[in-house]
């Protein structure tokens, strides 16, 4: 059994907006082992990105982590002083964002940007820094990297830019990379390439990953564990293969049913009716109540997350399994 890398327990991040408290992340708990890839799935606004940012302590105002604990190899990150937290960011946990054309600085050469990320954690000579940067760029699949350090982001294609961002994230050999939909903004053909490459890199470096996505089929090809989020909560989790074969929550079931590969030719795509409730006035009932086909009077009280050992589900009427 591998050692535990990250423990997230009861994490809640709320946004104090003018219209009330927006509960973006609510009581999220999960455990990540060293070198493990975990997929965090949910639709837009389900709280998956905010979960990622909360782990790094990078929630923008008016957002606030109101409860919970995030432990990296036993060290508590919530409430850690900013200077200390900065030594964690980039060196122990780094992040790759969705759109490389908005994350890289257009007026600095990629060499400069990489050297800044490197200099944030250690003092290295210019020459040593350049060698290291070129080395990592080569690893993520950018040929002739030493010469391209002087290039600017606009001189790269979208896929190449995302490779540069990934190289920056890998630069300090972090133990964990949070990937916030890193392939969503790319061409489908490039998506598969990058996906495969990241999986290989994670194996080579022994890096764990949290892969955030709204796309179940993408995630299932990289992650060994899946977390499904809905309205700020984890509603189902478990080993990817089991969860995809036998979903237990009606929402997961609906999601899988709406994948194009499950549709029969000539038939319209399945979809989940309705939409996610507003995160500001979440009541005490199950958040999926209004869209669920299996609901009854029991569903007016919020279900708890129940576990059968390897899988968890937050539902009064799980589709299968033995829950306690």
């Amino acid at each position, binding site marked *: 059994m591998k050692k535990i890398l990250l423990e997230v327990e009861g994490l809640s991040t709320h946004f104090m907006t003018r219209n009330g408290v927006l509960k973006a992340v609510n009581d999220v708990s999960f455990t990540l082992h060293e070198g493990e890839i975990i997929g965090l799935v949910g639709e837009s606004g389900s709280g998956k990105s905010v979960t990622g940012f909360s782990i790094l302590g990078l929630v923008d105002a008016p957002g606030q982590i109101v409860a919970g604990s995030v432990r990296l190899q036993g060290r508590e990150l919530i409430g850690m002083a900013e200077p200390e937290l900065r030594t964690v960011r980039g060196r122990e946990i780094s992040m790759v964002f969705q759109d490389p054309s908005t994350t890289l600085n257009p007026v600095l050469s990629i060499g400069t940007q990489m050297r800044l990320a490197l200099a944030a*954690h250690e003092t290295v000579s210019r020459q040593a820094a350049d060698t290291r940067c070129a080395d990592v760029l080569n690893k993520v699949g950018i040929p002739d990297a030493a010469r391209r350090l002087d290039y600017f982001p606009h001189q790269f294609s979208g896929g190449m830019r995302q490779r540069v961002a990934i190289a920056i994230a890998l630069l300090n050999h972090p133990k964990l990379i949070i990937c916030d939909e890193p392939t969503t903004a790319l061409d489908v053909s490039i998506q598969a390439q990058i996906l495969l490459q990241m999986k290989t890199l994670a194996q080579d470096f022994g890096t764990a990953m949290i892969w955030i996505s709204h796309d179940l089929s993408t995630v299932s090809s990289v992650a060994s564990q899946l977390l499904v989020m809905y309205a700020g909560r984890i509603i189902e989790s478990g080993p990817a293969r089991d969860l995809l074969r036998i979903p237990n929550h009606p929402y997961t079931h609906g999601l899988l049913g709406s994948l194009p590969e499950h549709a029969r030719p000539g038939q319209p795509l399945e979809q989940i009716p309705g939409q996610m409730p507003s995160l500001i006035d979440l009541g005490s009932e199950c958040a999926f109540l209004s869209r669920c086909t299996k609901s009854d009077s029991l569903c007016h009280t919020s279900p708890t997350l129940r576990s059968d050992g390897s899988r968890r589900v937050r539902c009064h009427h799980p589709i299968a399994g033995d829950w306690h």
Partner: protein
Amino acid sequence: MLGFVIQRVVQAVVVMLIISILVFVGVYAVGNPIDVLISPDATQLIREQTIKAYGLDQPLWKQYLDFLMRLLQGDFGRSFVYNMPVIDLIFSRLPATIELTLTAVLGATVLGVPLGIYAGYRPDRFLSKMIMGLSIFGFSVPTFWIGLVLIFTFAVTLGWFPAGNRGPTASLWGIEWSFLTGEGLAYLFLPALNLSLFKFAMMVRLARAGTRETMLTDIVKFARASGESEFTILHRHVLRLISIPIVTVFGLELGSTLAFAVVTETIFSWPGVGKLIIDSIATLDRPVMVAYLMLVAFLFIMINLTVDIVYVFLDPRLRHRRS
């Protein structure tokens, strides 16, 4: 890059030609300088001699061609009033204005941009609100009034700085400058402060708006996620990203202040070109007005050219498009 510069120089020549026509026609179509130059009771003979001596009996197009030919030889004519070459007259005044303007615009930028970045970075702090208050003050209070208040407070009441004039100067490259002597600096301080207040306010607003916008981008989030310090983020990422509008406004302000520092120069009796142009408009000293306007047009073109070249250094995307 070289091709770009050559192209811009050709454009500049065309623009200067067009401006020379506009300026010449505009200035020569108003008023009659003879009425100003000679007394009403002068004899008809003297009157005709004077008209002939200044070439005012020629048709307008002939006067323009003569003017243009002289211009190309570096001869801007003689001032009607001072009876000396216009070029000498303007260049005897120009260093004073350049010195005052550069001090004011540079000072406003060097102080305004960091304060603006701070106000954009921490918009809710008390200090930020103070900075913004000062910038609203700088925007809304008229320059001449501030000038008078400055003189009254620091020169008359407190006696810390002289109330006007240029004071002692020292020579560098054959030109007299105030900033080279300690006392000259004291003379320079109040008028430069007066002139810089509006520009300071503008730089603060520009830097603040840019910083607020930039701080919300993924560029900053990504840099933070890489563990870069807030100081690194501000001076390596944010400053570079907001520098393009700042350079633009810097250039425009430098040009317009060089040309129109009139109010401050008048209040502080600063012997610059602004004062000269006001006097020559009053006396219809046409060669001075024409030469001055041509000089201003030339300065604007040069400043804009410099700004365009600086852009290329600031934004690599332009560099590759043009090369």
